[in-house]
C-alpha cells in the first residue's frame, strides 16, 4: 500500500515546511508533513469574530520546532515581534540564514512575501538583490529589502538545520502528543486576542455564531482550513494503519481514527459549502447560524471522541 498523495493544502505553513524538508528527504509526502508537524490537527478560532488571522495566529517557532523534530530535523529561525518589521541587522541575519540554506541545497521557509501566508525562498541573486520565492499567491522575485516588509510588516524566516535519527514509532508518538496537547491546552500566552484552539476552538466558533458577529471572510477561511486539515488527518492515519513498523493495536486504532477524521471532515465540508471562500455566504443570518451551530456541535463531538482514541494510541505505543 503506497502513501496518500496530495499536492496542495490550505495550511500554507505545512506546504512551506514540506517545500524545505522534501529537499532532504525526497520520499516525504505532504500528508506526512501535515500529520507529523501537527497541522492536520489544528483549529484556532477567534472567539468573537472567527477572524481570518486564526489559522496563522500561534507561536510558529515553538510549533514548527516540535513538528520538524518529529520529521527528524532541527531548525533555525528568526522572527520579529508581531507587526514589527526587521531592523537592518535582523534583515541581514535573515538574508544570511536563507542564503546558507540555499547554498546547502534546501529552500527556506518565509512568511508574508507576496501574501500573508507561508512560502519558500529557493534562490538568491546578490547582484540584483532579489530572492526567488514562491508562496500561494506568486512565484517570482522578491527584493531583499521587502523581506519582513510585506503586507503585515513582520519577519519570519526558518531553515532546516541538522538531521536527527528518528524511528517511525517516535515520529508517530511526537505527532500524537502534538495533537493531544493542541486539543486540550490553550497555546496562547495572553487572553487577548481571544483565540481558542483545540476542543475549545469549536466552542469559541459556536459562541461566535450564537452572538452573530461572525466575519464572513474569516469564517469561510477558517472553515476551509480546518476542513482541509481534517481530510489530511484522515489520510495520515490511513497511511499509518498500513505501516509495518507500527504494532497491530496501534494500526487498528489508526484505522478507527482515520474514519473518525473523515467524518469530521464531512461535517466541516457542509460549512465550507454554506460559507464558500472568499465570499463567505451569510454566517450571521439566524437560520444559517443555527445550522452552522448544529454542524459544529457534531464536529466537536467527533473531535472529542477522536482525541480519546489518540490518547489510547499513545498508551499502546510505549
Amino acid at each position, binding site marked *: 500500500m503506497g502513501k496518500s498523495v496530495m499536492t496542495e493544502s490550505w495550511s500554507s505553513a505545512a*506546504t512551506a515546511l514540506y517545500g524545505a524538508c522534501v529537499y532532504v528527504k525526497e520520499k516525504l509526502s505532504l500528508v506526512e508533513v501535515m500529520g507529523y508537524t501537527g497541522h492536520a490537527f489544528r483549529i484556532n478560532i477567534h472567539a468573537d469574530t472567527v477572524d481570518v488571522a486564526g489559522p496563522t495566529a500561534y507561536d510558529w517557532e515553538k510549533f514548527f520546532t516540535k513538528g520538524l523534530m518529529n520529521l527528524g530535523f532541527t531548525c533555525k529561525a528568526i522572527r520579529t515581534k508581531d507587526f514589527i518589521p526587521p531592523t537592518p541587522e535582523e534583515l541581514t541575519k535573515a538574508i544570511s540564514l536563507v542564503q546558507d540554506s540555499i547554498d546547502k541545497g534546501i*529552500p527556506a521557509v518565509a512568511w508574508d512575501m507576496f501574501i500573508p501566508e507561508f512560502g*519558500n525562498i529557493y534562490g538568491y*541573486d546578490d547582484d540584483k538583490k532579489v530572492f526567488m520565492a514562491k508562496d500561494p499567491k506568486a512565484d517570482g522575485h522578491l527584493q531583499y529589502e521587502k523581506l519582513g516588509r510585506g503586507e503585515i510588516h513582520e519577519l519570519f524566516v526558518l531553515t532546516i538545520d541538522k538531521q536527527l535519527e528518528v524511528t517511525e514509532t517516535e515520529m508517530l508518538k511526537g505527532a500524537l502528543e502534538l495533537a493531544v496537547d493542541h486539543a486540550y491546552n490553550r497555546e496562547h500566552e495572553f487572553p487577548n486576542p481571544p483565540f481558542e484552539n483545540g476542543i475549545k476552538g469549536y466552542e469559541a466558533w459556536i459562541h461566535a455564531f450564537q452572538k452573530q458577529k461572525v466575519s464572513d471572510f474569516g469564517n469561510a477561511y477558517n472553515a476551509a482550513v480546518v476542513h482541509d486539515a481534517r481530510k489530511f488527518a484522515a489520510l495520515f492515519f490511513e497511511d499509518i494503519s498500513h505501516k509495518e513498523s507500527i504494532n497491530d493495536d496501534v494500526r487498528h486504532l489508526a484505522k478507527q481514527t482515520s474514519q473518525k477524521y473523515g467524518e469530521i471532515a464531512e461535517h466541516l465540508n457542509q460549512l465550507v459549502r454554506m460559507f464558500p471562500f472568499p465570499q463567505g455566504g451569510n454566517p450571521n443570518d439566524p437560520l444559517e447560524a443555527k445550522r452552522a451551530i448544529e454542524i459544529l456541535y457534531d464536529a466537536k463531538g467527533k473531535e472529542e471522541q477522536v482525541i480519546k482514541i489518540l490518547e489510547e494510541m499513545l498508551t499502546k505505543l510505549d
Partner: protein
Amino acid sequence: MISGLDSEIENEALMEKELVERAKRNDKDAFGELIRRHRAKACRWAQKWTKDPFLAEDIVQDALLNAFLQIHSLVDSEKFNAWFYRIVANQGYMKLRRGGHFGKEEPFSSLSPRQKQLDWSNIDHILFHLTKTVDTTPSTNPIDQVIRKETIKGITLMLQCLTEKERRIFEGYFFEQLSPTEIANMFQTKVSNVYNLLSRSKNKIRMERIRICIGEYVKTRKEKGLPTKRVLDHSKLL
C-alpha cells in the same frame, strides 16, 4: 531646409509626447528629461512675469515638486506645456497672494510664522524658517550655534543639487536633527502634525538605511568569495 526644420520640430514633438507618456507611467528619467527641457524656458517666463529672479527660481522649484505629484493627472500628453506653465502660474499667484511683493533678500517672506497657509511639509520652507530661528534665538553654546547654522546652510545648498532619492536621505537626516517642538514653534502648528511629518520622513530614511545595509552585506559576501547567485530547481515545491 524648411522641410528639414519642420521634420525636426515634428520629431521633437513626437519625442516629447513619448516622454510625457513615460513620465505618466512613473518613469523618473523621462520626467527629469521633460523638466530639463522646460525648466530654462519656464524660469525665463516666470522671471519676466514676477520681475524677480529669486522668486522665479523659487516658483519653479515648487512647481517641479507639484509637477511630480500631479503627473498622473495629465490626461492629454500633448498638453504638457500648457499644463506645466499653468502650475508655474498657480505657484506664482499663491506666493503673491500670501506675501504680496517681496524683495530679493527674502524670497520666502510670504511664509512668516504668522501666515496660516504655511506649507510646512515643504522642506525648503522649513529650512528657511529654521535659519531664521537660529539667528533670532541663538543657542548659549556658540560652537553649537555655528554648527547648527552651518548644517542648515549645508543642507540647503546640497538639496539644490541632489537627485530626488538623495534628497530623501537628507530630508530624513534633517528631521532627525530637530525636535518636533522646534519645528512646531517655527510653524505654530500642532505638534501632532509635526510628528506625522517626522514619522513619514523617518520611514523614508529607515528604508534608505536598510538599502545601505543590504549593499554592505552583499559587498562583504562578495569579498569573502561566497556565491553571488544560486537558484534551486523549484519543481519540487507545491
